[in-house]
C-alpha cells in the first residue's frame, strides 16, 4: 500500500508540489494527469527517492521514503520519460546489469531475465543490441528493467509519449496486466482517454496541487453535478421540454437538435426510469434515451485552468 501525505517540494521561491496526498492499494493503476509543469514529474521523482521532499511523507508498505530510501528503492520500479538505455549493450546484458544493481542473486538472474522478456514480448531480441530496437521495443525493455526485481510499485512517467498507436496499445495492455498481477502503478500521461481505459484511479494536478483524485467514476461524478440525459423523439421536441419543465429532479431542458432534447437531471437511477415513463405516458414518441457521461478529458478541461508554475 502507498500512502502519500502532504508532499511538498519547492525550488527556491517556486513551489513545484504542495500538499499532495493520496492512497493506493495493491492492483491500483493510478493515472496522474496534469499539464506540463503541473508537478507530476516532481511528485514521481520524490516517490522514486530522487528528490528530497521539503515536507510531508510517503510510505510504501509501511516504509517511509525519507527515512529509509534504500529500502523503498527495492520496492519501486521507476521509468522516467526518457529511456536511458546503454547503446553498446545487449538486451540481456542490460537486464542483467540492473538485476545485479537490484541485488537479484546471480543464480536467479537468467531465469528472471527470460521471464520479464517474455512478459514484455522481447524474447526474440534477447541478444540484440539495445540501440537497434525500435522506440516501442526500447520502451518495453525499459519496462522490463523496472520488473527485474519484482517491485510493488511502478512509477511510469509519460510512458506513452512518442509511441505509435500500436506500441501504445501494447503498452496499455502490459500495464493492465501488471495491475492484475497486484502491482500498484502510477502512470503520468497527457493522453487522457487512454488513461481512462486502463486506470482505476486518477489524480488531477495543477500548479503543484492535487485538485481531485479517486476512482475514475467518482472523479467524473464529482465534477458532473447533474446527469445529462439526451432524449431522442420523432417529433414535438419543444413541447416535451415544456412538459418536463418544473417536474421533480429536472433542473433544465434544452433543445439541441431537430429531434433531440437535453435534460439536466438531478435524480438517482430509479428516478431516471420514472422520467422515461412520464414521457412515454405523456404520449411522446421516444426513440432514444441516453445518459451522456463525461469523459476524463472533459473533467480535466473543466476543472483545470491550464496554468503552470
Amino acid at each position: 500500500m502507498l500512502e502519500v501525505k502532504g508532499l511538498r517540494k519547492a525550488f527556491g521561491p517556486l513551489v513545484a508540489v504542495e500538499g499532495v496526498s493520496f492512497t493506493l492499494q495493491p492492483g491500483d493503476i493510478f493515472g496522474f494527469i496534469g499539464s506540463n509543469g503541473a508537478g507530476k514529474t516532481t511528485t514521481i521523482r520524490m516517490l522514486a527517492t530522487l528528490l528530497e521532499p521539503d515536507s510531508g511523507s510517503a510510505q510504501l508498505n509501511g516504509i517511509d521514503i525519507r527515512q529509509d530510501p534504500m529500502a523503498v528503492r527495492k520496492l519501486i520500479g521507476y521509468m522516467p520519460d526518457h529511456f536511458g538505455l546503454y547503446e553498446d549493450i545487449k538486451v540481456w546484458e542490460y537486464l542483467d546489469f540492473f538485476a545485479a544493481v537490484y541485488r537479484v542473486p546471480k543464480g536467479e538472474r537468467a531465469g528472471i531475465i527470460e521471464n520479464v522478456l517474455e512478459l514484455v514480448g522481447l524474447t526474440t531480441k534477447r541478444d540484440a543490441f539495445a540501440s537497434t530496437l525500435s522506440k516501442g521495443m526500447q520502451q518495453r525493455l525499459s519496462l522490463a528493467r523496472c520488473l527485474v526485481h519484482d517491485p510493488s510499485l511502478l512509477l511510469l512517467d509519460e510512458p506513452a509519449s512518442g509511441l505509435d498507436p500500436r506500441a501504445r496499445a501494447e503498452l496499455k495492455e502490459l500495464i493492465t496486466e501488471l495491475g492484475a498481477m497486484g502491482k500498484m502503478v502510477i502512470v503520468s500521461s497527457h493522453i487522457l482517454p487512454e488513461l481512462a481505459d486502463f486506470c482505476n484511479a486518477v489524480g488531477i494536478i495543477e500548479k503543484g496541487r492535487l485538485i481531485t483524485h479517486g476512482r475514475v467514476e467518482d472523479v467524473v461524478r464529482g465534477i458532473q453535478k447533474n446527469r445529462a440525459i439526451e432524449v431522442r423523439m420523432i417529433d414535438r421536441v419543444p413541447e416535451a421540454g415544456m412538459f418536463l419543465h418544473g417536474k421533480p429532479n429536472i433542473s433544465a431542458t434544452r433543445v439541441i437538435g431537430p429531434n433531440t432534447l437535453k435534460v439536466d437531471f438531478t435524480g438517482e437511477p430509479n428516478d431516471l426510469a420514472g422520467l422515461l415513463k412520464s414521457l412515454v405516458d405523456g404520449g411522446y414518441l421516444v426513440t432514444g434515451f441516453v445518459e451522456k457521461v463525461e469523459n476524463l478529458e472533459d473533467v480535466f478541461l473543466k476543472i483545470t485552468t491550464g496554468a503552470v508554475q
Partner: protein
Amino acid sequence: MANLGAWVSEQRRTYFDNAGMVREYRTQLRGIKAPLFLVFYSGLFVMMASLFYFGIAFISNQSIAGTQQQLAFFYNVVVGMLEFLVALVAPVLAASSIIGEYQRQSIDLLFSSPVGPKYFLVGKLIASYRYVLLLLVLSLPVAAMCVVLGGATWKDVLSTYLLVSLHGLVYMAISIPIAVMTAKAVPAVMWSYLAGFLYFLVSFSTMIPAMRPGGFNNSAPPLMGLSPASSSISGRLSTEIFGVSVPLWVPAAVIVLLFVRLMILGAGSALTQAGSKETFNLRVTGLVLCFVVPLLTGLAMGGSSRVAFGATGNELATMVWWFTFPFFIFLPYLSTWAGSGGSKFLPNGWWRMKFTLRGTPGSGLPYLTCLLIALTIGSAIGTASSGIMGPLSFVYAFGIFALWALAWALGWAASSIVWRSGIESCRRLHVLFLFLVFVLPGIFLSILEGLTLSQGMNLPAGWSEKLNLSTFVMNDMNEAWYKIVIICVLAVLVWFFAERKRRQAVESMRQLA
C-alpha cells in the same frame, strides 16, 4: 559479527562484483575503436622510445660510465612518457564514463535503485583504472628493453609502474567529482586536465627536501612518490617512517587511496541529499588527510635522522601551505548557501557544531576549524622530534585559519548577494571573490614590483610580499601576526555584512513558504 559479515559482503559487492564495473568490462573493448586505439598507442610508444634510443646509441666514443648514464636517462624518458600518456588518458576515461551516464540520462535509473553513489562511482573508477593498467602492460616491452640494456632492474620497473598507476588513479579520482559537478563532457575534461596539472605542481613540492644541497641520505622524503615528476627515481628509493625503512610506493599508496576515497566521497556527497553517509564519510576522510599529510611531511623534515636535509621552518611552512592550498578549491562547497537544492543548502545559521559532519551551510566554519586542528596536531607530532617548527607552527596555524575564515566569509557574502539565483551562482560569485581577494593582488603587486625594479626605484626588499596579505614570511613573526590580525578583521567585517543579509534572506524564505 553479523554486522561484520554484512560489511564484508557489501565491500565484496562494491569492489569485486560491482555491476557497473562488469558492464564496462563487457563493453570497453567492444567494437573496432578500442583495439585500434590500443594498437596506435603501442605503436606510438614503441616508435618514440626507439627514436630516442637510437639517438643515444649512435653517439660514438662514449665511455662505459657515459653509456650507463645515457641508459639510465633512457629509462627516465620512458617513464616520463608513460606518466605523460597516463596523465592524458586517465582523466578522459573516468570523466567520459560518468558524463556518458548524464548524457544518456541513465543516472536517474541508477539512483532510483538500491545502490549508493559510492557503488556507482567505484565501478566507474575501477573500470577506468583497469584500462590504464592495460595501457601500462602494453608498454612493458619497452620498459623491459631498459632492463635488458641495463638502465633499470625489474624491481625498479615494477615499483615505478605501480607509482605511475597510482598517479593515474589520482588523475581519475580528480576527474570524478569534476565530471559529477559539471555534467558536461568538454568542461569536465578541461577542468580535469587543469586540476591534474595543479596536482603535478603541488606534488612537486614533496621533492623539495630531496633537492637541497646534499640531497638526502639513505632515506627519501616519504611523500616523494606522490610526484609524477619523480617516478623513475622514487621507484628505486625507500624512506624511513618511525624508524622502519619502507619503499616509497607504500606511503604514496596510502595517501593516494585516502585521496581517492576523498574524491569519491566528494562526488558522492554532491549526488546525495542532506545528511547522507557520503557527506559524513567525506568530512571524516578530509579530517584524516589533514592529519596524515602534515604528519608525514613533518616526519620527512623534522625527524632527527633527517637533519641532513637541513630543512627550515620556512620550508615546512611552504610545504604545508601547498598541501592546504587545495582546500580553497572546496571552499565554495563549504561556504555557500541558497534557497534551492533541498535542505542541504538552506542557510541554517553560521556556526552549527552539531552539523559539522552533516554538511549543511551552518557547518562550514566549524568544519574548517576542525580541519585546522587536525592539521596543526599532525604537523606538531610530525615535527616534534626536531622541533624545527616551534612557535612558528602556531603562527602558521593561525595564518591558515585566518585565510580560511576570510575565504569562508566571502562565500557567505556571495551567497547573501545572489542566493535567489541558486547555489551554482553563489559558488561562481564566491570563486570570483576568491580570485579578486587572494590571487589578483599578488599578480598586481608582482607586476608593480617588476616595474619599479625596471625603473631603478630603490624600494625596501620584499615590499610587495609584505603588502600581499595571502603570503606569510614566516621568518618574520611580527609581520605574520600583523597580517593575521588584518585578515581576521576583514573576515569579521565581511561576515557581519553577510550575516545580516542572511537573516533577511531566511525571513523572506519563510514568508515565501
